[in-house]
Structures are given as structure tokens and as C-alpha cells.
């Protein structure tokens, strides 16, 4: 069975125009319910922390609702893990600052984040501030796809 890597990742949605409507509806509703928002306040490109106001424990709630909606298990820190895998043996960060390779890796994993925001000097701890609702859409669609193919991902 094929192990998921950056090279064989399924196509990811870079904008709202690319989404599967049924999957998007589930993602949007999960965010709206977790954050006490109206569904139409949740956009694919909304920044989860900066614009929707999510706090750390909200991510727990969001993840729980997405797991239930898609019948998947979201690995904690999964986006960072994938980005680290994308840098191979090279360094992901130096003194907390992401390397060029790490930025390229994140750009491949998160096409919904404008490349200009993945700029030199970005710290690893700042990455969650870049997360869009679309980041979670792509993650859960990927995980649901892997599950359908019978791929077991590390927890």
C-alpha cells in the first residue's frame, strides 16, 4: 500500500472554487458549531485564529466535530508532521525559525495560504496563525480519502 508523501498527496483545494460542496458543508458547520458562528460567517479563506477568533481549546472542539462528521481520526500536530516529512533529512527549523525547505513544504501542504505569508523569518510557533478553514478542509478530505483507501496513518 502506498505511503502518503508530499509527492503523492491528492490534489488540494486552493480556494473555495475547488471544494466538494458536501464535504465543505460539513467543515463549515463544524466550525460554526464549535465557534458559535453563523454558517455564512465561515469562509474557506477565513483565518481560524485571526478572523474567526478561535482559541487553543476551540481547536479541540473543532477537531472533535470534524472527526465525527467525517468518521476519521485527526492526528494531533498532523500538519507540522507532514511538513517535517516534506523536508526529508534537511532541517525544518533553526532556533525556532523555519528553513526555506520547510516553507516550501508548508506551501505544498497548504495551498490555501498565500505564498507571501510563508515568508523567510516565519517561526514554527506562528504557523497555526496562518491556518485557514480551508486548511482543515484539505486535511479532513485527505484523511477521509486515506481511510477510504485503507491507509492507516500514525495517530
Amino acid at each position, binding site marked *: 500500500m502506498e505511503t502518503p508523501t508530499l509527492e503523492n498527496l491528492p490534489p488540494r483545494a486552493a480556494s473555495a472554487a475547488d471544494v466538494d460542496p458536501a464535504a465543505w458543508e460539513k467543515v463549515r458547520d463544524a466550525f460554526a458549531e464549535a465557534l458559535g458562528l453563523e454558517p455564512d460567517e465561515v469562509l474557506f479563506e477565513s483565518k481560524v485564529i485571526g478572523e474567526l477568533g478561535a482559541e487553543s*481549546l476551540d481547536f479541540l472542539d473543532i477537531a472533535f466535530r470534524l472527526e465525527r462528521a467525517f468518521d476519521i481520526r485527526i492526528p494531533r500536530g498532523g500538519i507540522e508532521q507532514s511538513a517535517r516529512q516534506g523536508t526529508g533529512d534537511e532541517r525544518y527549523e533553526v532556533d525556532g525559525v523555519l528553513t526555506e525547505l520547510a516553507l516550501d513544504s508548508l506551501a505544498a501542504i497548504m495551498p490555501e495560504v498565500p505564498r507571501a505569508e510563508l515568508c523567510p523569518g516565519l517561526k514554527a510557533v506562528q504557523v497555526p496563525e496562518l491556518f485557514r478553514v480551508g486548511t482543515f478542509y484539505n486535511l479532513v478530505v485527505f484523511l477521509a480519502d486515506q481511510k477510504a483507501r485503507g491507509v492507516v496513518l500514525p495517530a
Partner: protein
Amino acid sequence: MRPAPAFVFLVHPLVPAQRVVLGLRQLSLSRARGRRPETFGRIGTVGLPAHALGEVLGLMMEPEAMLADPQAAVDLMERAARSVPGIRAVGLGSLCALVGGRGEELARRLSVPVTTGALATAWALHGHARAALKALGRPRGPVAVVGSAGPVGELVARLLVRDGVEVRVDNRRGSRAARVCAGPDEAVEGCPLVIGAGTSGGVLDPAALARGAWLIDVASPGTLKGEPERGVRVLPGEALPLPAGWHRGLWGRAFHRVAGYGPRHVYACLVEPLVLAASGRDRPYALGSRLREEDLVDFDRRARAMGFSASGFIG
């Protein structure tokens, strides 16, 4: 004869002393019954016998484990709730109120209303804030609400704005009626009163508070990143004075004592399932991320009738 329990209240130990009390209680029960200790257990019976009594059940699950595996936490909560027959409500304390979609997953599995305590917490905070503003001689504020993105903070900010108070919030989700600031430190600048309404704290620099400011806090751990500066007063936002006739046994007293509020106060979130069970309502006061003002009005009326008051905070 004491009436049968009408509700259960699910908690988990937050600090080592609570773990010790719960562990000893479990050990004594299991020895008496000749069984291995359970993964949850009865701490005590509390409440108002004239209205409703409840069983406080402690889950032997660490906060970290609950966050790492919410499904296992909900499974344990379900088992605990089902262990007391005939109840009319389930209340959730601390992280129990957060995991599993803020009570929604547990509610789906049970046939009785599950309530998170968030409404009673907002009720207590609002009452305490009004009393504090009066005591400070600043009825119009300004008041900063830290943690305004959550359901409790959002509702408290809204209620204070309606009272005619100038309110600042630290997050745009709490912004519908208040001034939005860039963050907690900016929101509290120059405010004589600060409401710490977040779920988890450690977000506010103590130096950002005005000299002599009062912080009414429900966050656990507390809203401040460190020790408060001299002259700043930190008040427990969820503490309600015990009404006349309050019942609790020896173990309930022991657990309560290490919970931090002392022997004469009770958590507002514990009062919520009590009022719910006594009222016969089949709709919870708080479930998920939204709190409704009409529910607050109903809760306020019933809670006051039972002798609860949200204006006498611990000074």
C-alpha cells in the same frame, strides 16, 4: 428520608490534592465492597433536599488524557452518568464540559438533558461584575472581558453592554456590542474591572492591569500569566455563597475544600444541573457553543427562588 439523586455532576481532579481525596474515596469504597477501584466513583451527595440532590462523580482521568482522547473521556462520562438511575439532569465540571463538543456528544447518548454549567457561570460573572462596579464606584466601567470569544465571555459582555457599561473585548467574536481590542493586554488598559471569562488562562500579563484593578476570574488555570501585582484583587468568578439548607457529606466537603473556594461557597456550574433537575425542564441551560438569553432569564428566576445569589462574591 433523603430524596433520591435527581442529577449527577461529573468532575475530574485538577490538582494533586483533589486526586488524593478522590483516590482515597475510591479506595475506601472498593475495599468496603471487596472490588477493584473503578475508573470513576462517587464523591458525595450535594444539593438542596427541598429541591434536588445530586451525586458528584469523579472521573479518574487526567486532564491531559481527556484532551488527548476525548472519545475515551466521553465514554467514561457516559458510564458514570448511567451508573445513577432515575436522574433528571447531568452537569459537567471543568474539562468534562469541553470535550465531546461541549457536552453535545454525551447528550446524544443519554436520554436526560446534559448541561455544561456555562450559563450559570455567565450568570455568576455578570452578577459579580455588577456588584464589583458598584463597590468600585464605577457603575459605567470600563470593564474588560478577557476570553470574550467563548460563550461565557460573549454573553457577559453583551449583558454588561445592555446595563450601560463601557465594555472592551479581546477578540472580535465577542465584538457584537463592545469595543474590540487587539488582545487582552490592550483590552485591560486602565480598566478598574476585568472579567476573566476564558476556559484556560495564562493569557494576560499581570503588569498590564491597572493599579488597584479587580479581576473576577473563572479561567482555570487563572487568566494571569503570573502573580498579580500589589494592589490588584483577584476574585473567584464562579463562587456562589451557599444558600440555606445546603447539604453535602463528609467526602463532598473534603473534595470541595481542596477545590479552592472554601466551605461556604459552591461552583456556579454545579448549581446549573441542580436548578435544571428541580425545574423539570427537558432542555438544558447550556449545551454546545451558544447560550440563550431567555434561558438566562429562566435560570435567574429559578436560582433566586432557591436562595442562590450572584452578588455576594468572596472578598
